């Protein structure tokens, strides 16, 4: 799935800059006039994010696929960097006439400076047989030099978006020192196929597991059992999805290895099992089951062996989520009378309640480090809104605005974004937003889509 096979530095200034970050680059094949002391970190005005421009990449071969890819890569890269919210992206239609040259060696620095750009990504696409070769350079406009350069060979013709995502993650890593989410994926449940559930006389529409790029592109169906499937979640290596599937009378936990097309059933068919969630090290799965007569939290090894019960309470304990270190589990319990978020140690001890001001709180999801926060959905009138509880500070922030009902939050692997489901447009769709509730993006548009989960 990952396209870049060969990555190397193409400029001397880039080399020196990258040494700060990675220090494992093969020698550069060509070197433009060396600049002295180019800052590889592009900055904007003091206190403001840098302004970036990304014109269409240059098509170096004259076929239609190359022309389309050259435009698409620039569009997707612009959107990816915009999503990270560390860069002020200049709208792409404002610089159509600037710098239409056929080389990535340099740019018209003065024209870009006039436009207010601090960073410009210029790139090219060349068709070589059944693949593309994509080259890109990130120019530091103020310093009039190259901050980063890369060549990507063997880019698949069918999905040029993937190389744009790779470029975005590299720029974000080198410029902001942060991991990007451009190559991550979402999994969720969808009824879009409108297929009638088998093995029942009732008229019910099947709900299947889907995956999509984080931005909603490349939506693909994972299951085809024409039954109800719920609560999918990614393994930490982002290669498997665990979910509950009503393939028998009782929903069982199934793991689909999405890149191999194989699957394993982890729980038996004698009792129901829901909400599988992998521990951060990937070795254990927490889940809810009624096997002992009441909804309780259990944990098992990733192959389904060694089931251990963690809660023991006549109330319903459900929807577990692991802390970033795997030492604690937050979950929903109605032992106080209404569903609230509780936390316990990973061995089931030291149980304490963390939500108090809510009439109904559910679907806790613990953010990755460095943010020690728990997002959940809380009743806020007729519907629900997404809130964040800061574990250290004990404060709560509301992220959504009461339009429709907003449920099932899931953090991005960086903790800087949240996916959730919302009925704000009528049907239930998956959206993403920043962890401050801003920068809302719609991910799905077809059918009803629920239970989002973000790959690691």
């Amino acid at each position: 799935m990952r396209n870049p096979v060969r990555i190397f530095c193409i400029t001397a200034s880039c080399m020196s800059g990258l040494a700060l970050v990675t220090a494992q680059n093969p020698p550069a094949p060509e070197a433009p006039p060396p600049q002295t002391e180019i800052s590889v970190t592009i900055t904007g005005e003091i206190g403001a994010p840098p302004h970036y421009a990304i014109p269409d990449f240059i098509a170096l071969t004259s076929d239609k696929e190359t022309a389309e890819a050259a435009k698409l890569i620039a569009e997707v890269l612009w959107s990816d960097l915009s999503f990270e919210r560390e860069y002020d992206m200049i709208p792409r239609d404002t610089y159509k006439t600037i710098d239409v040259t056929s080389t990535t060696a340099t740019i018209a620095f003065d024209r870009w400076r006039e436009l207010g750009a601090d960073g410009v990504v210029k790139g090219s696409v060349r068709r070589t047989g059944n693949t593309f070769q994509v080259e890109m350079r990130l120019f530091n406009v103020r310093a009039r030099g190259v901050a980063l350069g890369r060549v990507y060979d063997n880019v698949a013709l069918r999905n040029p978006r993937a190389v744009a995502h790779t470029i975005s993650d590299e720029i974000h890593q080198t410029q902001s020192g942060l991991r990007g989410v451009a190559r991550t994926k979402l999994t969720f449940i969808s009824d879009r196929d409108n297929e009638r559930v088998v093995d029942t006389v009732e008229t019910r529409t099947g709900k299947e597991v889907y995956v999509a790029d984080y931005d909603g592109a490349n939506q693909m169906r994972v299951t085809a059992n024409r039954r109800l499937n719920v609560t999918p979640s990614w393994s930490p290596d982002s290669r498997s999805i665990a979910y509950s599937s009503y393939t028998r009378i009782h929903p069982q936990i199934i793991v689909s290895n999405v890149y191999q097309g194989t699957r394993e059933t982890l729980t038996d068919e004698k009792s129901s099992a829901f909400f599988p969630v992998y521990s951060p090290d990937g070795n254990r799965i927490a889940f809810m089951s009624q096997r002992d007569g009441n909804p309780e939290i259990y944990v098992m090894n990733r192959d389904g062996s060694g089931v251990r019960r963690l809660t023991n309470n006549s109330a319903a304990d459900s929807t577990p989520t692991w802390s970033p270190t795997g030492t604690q589990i937050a979950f929903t319990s109605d032992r106080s009378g209404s569903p609230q978020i509780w936390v316990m140690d990973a061995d089931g001890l030291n149980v304490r309640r963390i939500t108090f001001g809510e009439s109904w709180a559910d679907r806790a999801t613990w953010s990755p480090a460095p943010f020690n926060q728990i997002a959940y959905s809380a009743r806020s009138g007729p519907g629900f809104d997404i809130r964040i509880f800061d574990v250290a500070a004990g404060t709560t922030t509301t992220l959504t605005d009461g339009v429709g009902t907003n449920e099932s939050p899931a953090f991005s692997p960086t903790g800087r974004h949240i996916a959730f489901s919302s009925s704000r447009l009528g049907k239930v769709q998956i959206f993403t937003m920043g962890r401050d509730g801003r920068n809302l993006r719609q991910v799905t548009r077809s059918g009803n889509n629920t239970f989002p989960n973000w790959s690691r």
Partner: protein
Amino acid sequence: MKLRSLICICVLLLIGASACRKSQPPVARPTPPTPPPTAGTTPPAPPEPMREPMPPEPLPSDDVAGRSLDDLNRDSPLRPVFFELDSSDVSDASRTTLQANAAVLKKYPSWVITIEGHCDERGTPEYNLALGERRAVSARQYLISLGVDASRLRTVSYGSEFPFDPAHQESAWSRNRRAHFVITAK
């Protein structure tokens, strides 16, 4: 002559019974084969002892026994029970329904039942999966208290995933908070 009018009455009863039932789509059900009235050749029917007309059975037993699981579930003798908002308590009305269901289950002791617990759409889908299980369990407990063998009663929660009525209003919600009975073996 007598035989003929008996058959007529039987057929009428059957039609009446099926018309009374709150049936879903009118599925073509094989009508019981009527013996050909080959007049004259057969010996006259023995004088039947049944003087009293049978009390009207809601479900003639031979009809039920002969139907497939799918046919039974399509027009089930087991009625759903409904719940209050955020509650899994069995109401008085539900008790009456469950008592009737228990009578059916005692009449057909080989049947195995799955009790599906369902919720309306207003809660979160995750907690609804837990709440639905509770509703199924309370219906099951009441059936057990009425003498139905526990081993015949399985429970499963569907949360709010399969509303009976997809409308977004109270009239739909009150019908969606339910325990639904599925005959899974007979």
